[in-house]
């Protein structure tokens, strides 16, 4: 049975987490298993960054266990507009995070567990880690049909994906992290991972959709805690280390100096949206106004999350041409974001005469523009 250490072990941890200076001897050799007390995706991703940047993993490997409250996590070079339903996520207060590793988009909630294997760059070995997980699952429930594919997915019953993998290789260290579906909300998962945005052209790395299943559906006696314990147990056995899991608090600057800066950076618009590879939007929509249907064609180039080039094709004279060109001018250089677009649309409207007809047409156009973002 794996014992959970209390938080007073964190002081001990702060010694072993720092890069050893000359003469320092680590009290733990071989490996370390840590689990986050936080369910905040940004804090937990920051822990990964911190360990990657600050820990010396020459003689020590680390397994990091974490879970997040509802969030969509995209890969380093992905396009969130292509990957998920940002509108729905805003409505449901589901966070969007961009991780530093590659790979595709995943949905996290408390029914999903995340596992990060930290090693030196030389010892980076995803297959080994995934086989460890499968071994742990089979030790827990021998009847489970789980195996690792050559795409580094873990499949249940040969058809359902229960785990996806991503990785980052740094100067001297590497990490491989993966998800594991225990009891996540599949309904929310499939609805947020479906993008409603049309006409996007981009060379961002795409996700490969898959049918998923929770382990809980296969065996309702399974819980996240049981899975975490089983995997920690197997890791401890294979690395011949203490079975204890040390709890860590990602908000603790004394244990992780500089971590709040990393956490903040992961939440900036510039990182989450601004790192999207250049893409273009070429789409049209219909607007129903009184008794007519109007076709509008929109073309935009978006770079670093900002509109670089913009063209809106409207039926002639439906709106004053001067106002339309002002809109295009304002959009150019602004963020490809509903908030920013709504704000600049409202600002432009304020300098117009108060004409109800004009106002309703303007609002209709701008509302539609916003739905593209």
């Amino acid at each position, binding site marked *: 049975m794996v014992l959970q250490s209390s938080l007073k072990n964190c002081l001990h941890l702060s010694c072993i987490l720092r890069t050893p200076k000359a003469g320092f001897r680590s009290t733990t050799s071989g490996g370390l298993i840590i689990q986050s007390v936080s369910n905040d995706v940004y804090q937990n991703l920051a822990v990964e960054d911190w360990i990657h940047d600050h820990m010396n993993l020459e003689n020590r490997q680390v397994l990091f266990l974490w879970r997040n409250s509802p969030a969509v996590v995209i890969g380093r070079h992905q396009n969130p507009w292509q990957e998920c339903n940002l509108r729905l996520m805003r409505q449901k207060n589901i966070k969007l995070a961009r991780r530093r*590793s*590659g790979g595709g988009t995943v949905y996290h909630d408390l029914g999903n567990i995340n596992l990060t294997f930290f090693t030196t760059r030389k010892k980076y070995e995803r297959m080994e880690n995934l086989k460890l997980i499968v071994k742990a699952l089979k030790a827990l429930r021998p009847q489970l049909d789980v195996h690792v594919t050559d795409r580094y997915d873990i499949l249940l019953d040969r058809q359902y994906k229960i785990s996806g993998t991503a*990785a980052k290789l740094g100067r001297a260290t590497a990490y491989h992290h993966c998800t594991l579906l225990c009891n996540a909300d599949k309904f929310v998962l499939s609805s947020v991972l479906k993008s409603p945005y049309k006409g996007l052209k981009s060379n961002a790395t795409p996700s490969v959709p898959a049918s998923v299943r929770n382990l809980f559906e296969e065996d309702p006696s399974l819980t996240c805690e049981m899975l975490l314990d089983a995997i920690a147990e197997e890791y401890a056995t294979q690395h011949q280390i203490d079975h204890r899991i040390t709890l860590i608090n990602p908000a603790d600057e004394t244990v992780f100096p500089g971590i709040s800066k990393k956490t903040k950076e992961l939440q900036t618009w510039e990182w989450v949206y601004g790192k999207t590879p250049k893409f273009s939007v070429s789409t049209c929509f219909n607007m129903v106004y009184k008794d007519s249907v109007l076709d509008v064609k929109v073309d935009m180039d978006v770079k670093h999350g900002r509109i670089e080039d913009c063209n809106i094709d409207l039926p002639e004279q439906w709106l004053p041409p001067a106002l339309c060109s002002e809109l295009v001018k304002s959009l150019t250089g602004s963020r490809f974001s509903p908030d920013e677009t709504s704000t600049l649309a409202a600002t432009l409207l304020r300098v117009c005469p108060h004409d109800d007809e004009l106002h309703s047409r303007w609002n209709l156009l701008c509302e539609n523009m916003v739905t593209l973002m």
Partner: protein
Amino acid sequence: ARKFTDKHEWISVENGIGTVGISNFAQEALGDVVYCSLPEIGTKLSKHDEFGALESVKAASELYSPLSGEVTEINAALADNPGLVNKSCYQDGWLIKMTVENPAE
């Protein structure tokens, strides 16, 4: 002359401009490159600065500047054809060109 870093990046300097790429060993270790993230022209780099990343089927891997200088050109062909890094790491798969601020480096 092509010089190598211990991280398996190479730089070849001609007329004060250095062309940077990754070695054959590095491209083999990475596997098929699916995306190249490169800096903006004009970016100033110090030796060892992270200037971009390559994403391959294996992982996202950071690129470190072998020298200090300013980015003068990036290989636009890699946007549509990131596999050039694997196929021709010393020729068509070059990553960036930069000025060489400190020839001693």
